[in-house]
């Protein structure tokens, strides 16, 4: 029988189900456990943590996840690939090593560390040498916000992960690797795919896209026939069974809840999709219009036909910069005429802000239970809604103004419209906004490094 490589998704973001990694290694045979921790804003949070404590700056959940799968790694040869390193992969590796030593298993781990994605120390050098790092959405050059930048990381591809595996690592920790590379790399490593086998690389990327959001491809957050999806409490996370030719099957462990079907996989495929003809990654440009799905037994979907084309000569850079302050507060108004009361509260509050001379860059009012998520499309909520939550947020560069705003909400409980509750949280917190600045940089600028300990 030809070789099949099983890559299991165990985390879809930092904050995902702590049980999932252990369930993936215990529920049946797998070769690789893939854990994705990084969203666009995560790097900036990690950068702030590192500034406060140089030993931080990585996804700390990963240490617990590693502890929960340590015996599978030590005894059964399961390998782990994670972008948990954030802005400090070395510290992440040290924390995992310390955990393994405590457990008496230090000898079982060979940790591969991938670095080189962090461009923060090099920003000025890059700007001076003509890399403008223009915002991909607005076209503005980075110099506009340069003094407020707190993190800058290039999205790196599969090559350094493949290198770490080739050097014998059984745990690979990266910084800002693309989510999809974490899945494609072990397939590329196991099957020896060349750097120009575009169709196969694209297949690996699409396998990665399918399992990078955890259970979102195995019945979680699935709208299709959602009532009939069984045992969500016991949901199985997705597993890719990859073949050398680039075809693969998406499945989950037997006996787990959830569902893997053409509709559940299709919903994940279209998630966060841009132009489906050109899903650009550092390794390859994948064509989502070439994907074919077919049922292949209970909770099994076969994926084939995938086409890819050569990668571009750029890497995407995720830059985080400070962009003012915001605060959001809320109150709950009860039947009868809950919406009308909440709307009156909004007019009263806005008039008070006006009288205080407070102008904000943005003020947004929402009425949860009437129109918060679908706006005018939701139609008339009527007079009979049992309750409506009045939710108001402001955003501004001036922290003092935002702080003053937070003191105007709770007073409405006694000096505004009636039938109001839900103020137990008191004044809302003022949050500093760390905004996202996507840019492109020449590939030649970024040199990744691999170290296996």
């Amino acid at each position, binding site marked *: 029988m030809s070789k099949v490589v099983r890559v299991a998704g165990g985390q879809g973001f930092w904050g995902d189900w702590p049980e999932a990694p252990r369930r993936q290694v215990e529920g049946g045979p797998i070769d690789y456990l893939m854990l994705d921790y990084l969203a666009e804003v995560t790097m900036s949070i990690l950068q702030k943590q590192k500034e406060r404590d140089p030993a931080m700056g990585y996804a700390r959940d990963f240490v617990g996840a590693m502890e929960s799968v340590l015996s599978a790694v030590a005894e059964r040869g399961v390998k782990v690939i994670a972008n948990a390193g954030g802005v400090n992969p070395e510290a992440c590796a040290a924390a995992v090593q310390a955990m393994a030593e405590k457990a008496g298993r230090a000898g079982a781990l060979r940790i591969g560390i991938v670095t080189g994605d962090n461009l923060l120390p090099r920003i000025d050098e890059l700007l001076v040498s003509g890399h403008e790092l223009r915002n991909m959405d607005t076209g503005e050059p980075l110099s506009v916000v340069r003094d407020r930048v707190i993190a800058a990381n290039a999205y790196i591809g599969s090559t350094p992960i493949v290198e770490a595996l080739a050097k014998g690592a059984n745990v690979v920790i990266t910084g800002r690797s693309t989510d999809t590379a974490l899945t494609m790399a072990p397939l590329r490593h196991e099957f020896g795919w060349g750097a120009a086998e575009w169709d196969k690389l694209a297949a690996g990327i699409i396998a990665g896209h399918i399992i990078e959001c955890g259970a979102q491809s195995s019945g979680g957050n699935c709208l299709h026939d959602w009532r009939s999806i069984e045992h969500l409490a016991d949901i199985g996370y997705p597993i890719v069974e990859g073949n050398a030719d680039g075809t693969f099957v998406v499945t989950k462990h037997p006996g787990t809840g959830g569902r893997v079907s053409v509709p559940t996989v*299709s919903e994940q495929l279209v*998630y966060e999709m841009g132009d489906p003809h050109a899903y650009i990654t550092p390794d390859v440009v994948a064509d989502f219009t070439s994907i074919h799905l077919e049922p292949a037994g209970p909770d099994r979907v076969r994926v084939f036909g995938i086409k890819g084309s050569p990668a571009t000569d750029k890497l995407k850079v995720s830059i985080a910069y400070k962009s003012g302050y915001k605060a959001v507060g809320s109150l709950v108004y009860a039947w009868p005429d809950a919406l009308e009361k909440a709307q009156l509260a909004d007019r009263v509050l806005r008039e008070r802000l006006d009288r205080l001379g407070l102008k904000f860059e943005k003020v947004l009012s929402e009425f949860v239970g009437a129109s*918060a*998520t679908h706006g005018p499309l939701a139609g008339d909520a009527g007079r009979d809604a049992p309750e409506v939550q009045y939710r108001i947020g402001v955003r501004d560069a001036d922290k003092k103004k935002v702080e003053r705003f937070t003191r105007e909400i709770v007073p409405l409980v006694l000096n505004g419209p009636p039938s109001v509750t839900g103020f137990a949280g008191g004044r809302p917190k003022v949050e500093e906004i760390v905004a*996202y600045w996507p840019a492109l940089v020449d590939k030649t600028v970024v040199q990744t490094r691999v170290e296996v300990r």
Partner: protein
Amino acid sequence: MRVRLLDIAHARSGDKGDTANVGVIALRPEWYAVLERHVTRDRVAQHFAGVIEGGVDRFELPNLMALNFLLHGALDGGGTLSLKTDAQGKVFSTALLRLVLDVPDVEARALELPEAP
């Protein structure tokens, strides 16, 4: 015949910056043609008028029986800037499924489309 998109398709949505994407997937293979013909870029732009600030792009994925829509200026700046409950566009999916299509009777009957209640 009036046909609710909700009855002939499912959907998932997400974000990229200030843009929300909605992937709409036909519930039956033969209904993909209905999506392609009737869920046009203009129809969707009209549907979201007053809800989003920017334009709409449409991409076709007949292989997945799906259309992908990009709704620009949908998320109050998006990501951490946004003050919206749905800052990441997670439920634009069902907002699009509120669309009600006018499908010629002949076509609707031939494809056994469910009539809107």
